[in-house]
């Protein structure tokens, strides 16, 4: 399955000091740790999505949990659109109204959602190599401007702060929950392959994330990225080889657009199926248009300004907000299921 590919580097300012890459590497085990409850829940209910088994476990109260998650996804995707349009309007197209960007984006996502999960994954399968290749090409083109000395001294701060960094990084990926929603669509029923899928997903994610961090830190230094709003974009703009390979930020932009489209489509899909499962509808398709009409105004309404966005994305708020949904609720569900001995209990 190609769910792996829905991940892409969220190009936000990297935190901390020169050991960030280590934190990213450690985010692989952190991700795995965070996925444990989801994985165990899936083993108990292999044919149900997160919202379905929360109803099996909690009964009517499960509907409430399901609704909460639908709202969470809705919020998450509008936050993503917020970030997306913040980037586009400040860096690329300052005079284009956000509404137009969304109008050009969302109906196409809705179309993909109508056609089902297979279309989305096939699309991902087709374009992920381009996205990965783009990141690697940018890395190679910037290689001559890099100063790898910035990564010393090694382990300057305590190991604990790096672990914390890894945890925060892992908590930024709300896609862990997308897994919980999509695992019933996985045709492979063998637990082993699901496990390796988790691992490879997180490794690929961490790998590309580290590449981006190396690019940013080794070209811009340690102090400047803390000041810059879109440091990866700034790093990409530095590419200048032989006076003619220049200004290739459009490559970066197209990568960003495609991966953003994928992510929005996937979240859209999850919202729609989640909602249909909460209300016990057999078919999710009638919901697509109505969610579309809700999504555009919501993502416009939450957009106020850049300081607001920076506040939310900073590591004091967003990861802990995600922690609640990614870890605490699944753990609670899992423990209830264990106490009530529900689902397939295999050794």
């Amino acid at each position, binding site marked *: 399955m190609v769910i792996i590919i829905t991940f892409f580097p969220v190009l936000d300012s990297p935190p901390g000091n020169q050991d960030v890459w280590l934190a990213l590497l450690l985010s692989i085990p952190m991700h795995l740790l965070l996925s444990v409850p989801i994985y165990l829940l899936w083993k108990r209910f292999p044919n149900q999505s997160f919202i379905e088994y929360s109803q099996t476990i909690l009964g009517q109260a499960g509907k409430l949990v399901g609704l909460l998650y639908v709202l969470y996804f809705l919020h998450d995707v509008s936050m993503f659109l917020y970030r997306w349009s913040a980037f586009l309007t400040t860096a690329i197209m300052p005079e284009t109204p956000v509404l137009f960007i969304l109008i050009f984006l969302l109906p196409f996502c809705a179309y993909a959602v109508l056609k089902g999960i297979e279309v989305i994954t096939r699309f991902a399968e087709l374009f992920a190599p381009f996205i990965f290749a783009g990141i690697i090409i940018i890395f190679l083109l910037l290689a001559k401007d890099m100063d790898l000395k910035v990564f010393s001294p090694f382990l300057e701060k305590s190991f604990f702060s790096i672990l914390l960094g890894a945890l925060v990084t892992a908590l930024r990926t709300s896609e862990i929950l997308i897994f919980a929603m999509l695992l019933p669509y996985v045709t492979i029923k063998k637990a082993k392959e699901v496990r390796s899928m988790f691992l490879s997903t997180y490794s690929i994610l961490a790998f590309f994330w580290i590449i981006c961090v190396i690019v940013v830190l080794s070209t811009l230094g340690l102090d400047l990225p803390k000041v810059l709003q879109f440091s990866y974009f700034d790093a990409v*703009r530095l590419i200048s080889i032989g006076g003619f390979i220049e200004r290739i930020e459009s490559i970066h932009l197209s990568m960003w657009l495609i991966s953003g489209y994928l992510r929005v489509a996937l979240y859209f899909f999850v919202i729609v199926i989640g909602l249909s499962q909460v209300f016990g509808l057999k078919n999710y398709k009638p919901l697509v248009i109505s969610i579309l009409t809700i999504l555009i105004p919501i993502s416009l309404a939450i957009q106020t300004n850049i300081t607001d966005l920076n506040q939310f994305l900073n590591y004091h708020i967003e990861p802990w907000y995600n922690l609640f949904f990614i870890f605490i609720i699944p753990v609670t569900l899992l423990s209830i299921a264990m106490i009530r001995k529900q689902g397939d209990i295999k050794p």
Partner: protein
Amino acid sequence: MKKVLTTIACILLLTMLPGCWNRRELNTLSIVQAVGIDRTDTGQISVSLQILKPNAIKSSTSEKDVGSKSVWVVTSEGETVFDALRNSSMQTDRKAYFPHNTVYVLSEELAREGIGDELDLLGRDPEFRKLPYVFITKGKAEDIIRSSHEQEKIPGQAIQKMAEISFATSKIPKINFLELLKNLASKTNDSIIPGITLVPDKSEESMKNFVKLEGTAILKKDKMIGWFKGEETRGVLWILGNVKSGILVVPTPNDENKKSGIEVIKANSRIVAERVDGNLEITVNVHADGNLGEHMGHEDLVNPEDFKELEELMASAIEEEIRSAVDKAQEWEVDIFKFGTEVHRQLPKEWPELEKNWREEFPKIKVNIVVDTTLHWAGLMKKSIQPPTKEGGENQ
């Protein structure tokens, strides 16, 4: 019915295709090649833009009117840099467009009061790139922007190329905007910016002035505090490992009145920070490779002993340059050598304490200089062109 709907949808989609919300065609843009920033007597910001005239460039290829200027300089004033830049659109019929800008010139007057505030816009606005070179001029930046150049049609590009070949002497640093931003963002580093000045044209028929790179402005944080001469600048560049080439003038062995020139072909540096008896000591290890490029005097230099002596002379010349730079920097309390970063890397445990008052610590550092040189080749001649004479060489 469905077909009609699809057709309508297709037509609607077509309307989306032609493009962008705010597209700008080439003939609505003023392509800016160089930007100069001054402060006027009344405290306003004055900005000079060197704008490309595409028509003039095209016509002058036909050798018809070489004399016609291919750029147009517009100067405008405002409360802030942004304000001043926008005010320029009241003089130009097209909106200024900056991504092709190659050079920023700041006036010394402005730099002495601090450039951090003025440079904010250039880092913030996405239309400005971070690769143009930065210069400081003793006079007005506007004069530099208004100057013309014989070789290149666009003076801005000429200045850019001058910066790019500055490695030939290594007496001028090559600082682009990103480099400057990195130093400004750092807590301990201070910046160097190459100087640019005007020299009058010697030929009699014109009153023109030409630009020339000269000296290096030293900045304490964002405030300029003084100038380094060419050799002192090279001293800084030796430490930073940025010397790529350059001519070292040393006295000719056995002939004190004559000089020889050594061409540096490769150089690198390594900085070691350590505690010696409780004091912070920094050892600068420089290794330079060179060729004997010029030999004045009658002596036959191409023998092992004299080559050895030349190597030593070369080393002491380098050491002298570095020493003069270090002494001056310590006197001015500016860490232009990135010693702070190096100490941070090598003594990470002590760094938090040192960082707090690095400016007081910096002048107290004992700097040891170890220079190691290797001479390789001596060009196309084996011996001096003049045969040794009785006066020139007794030992023959």
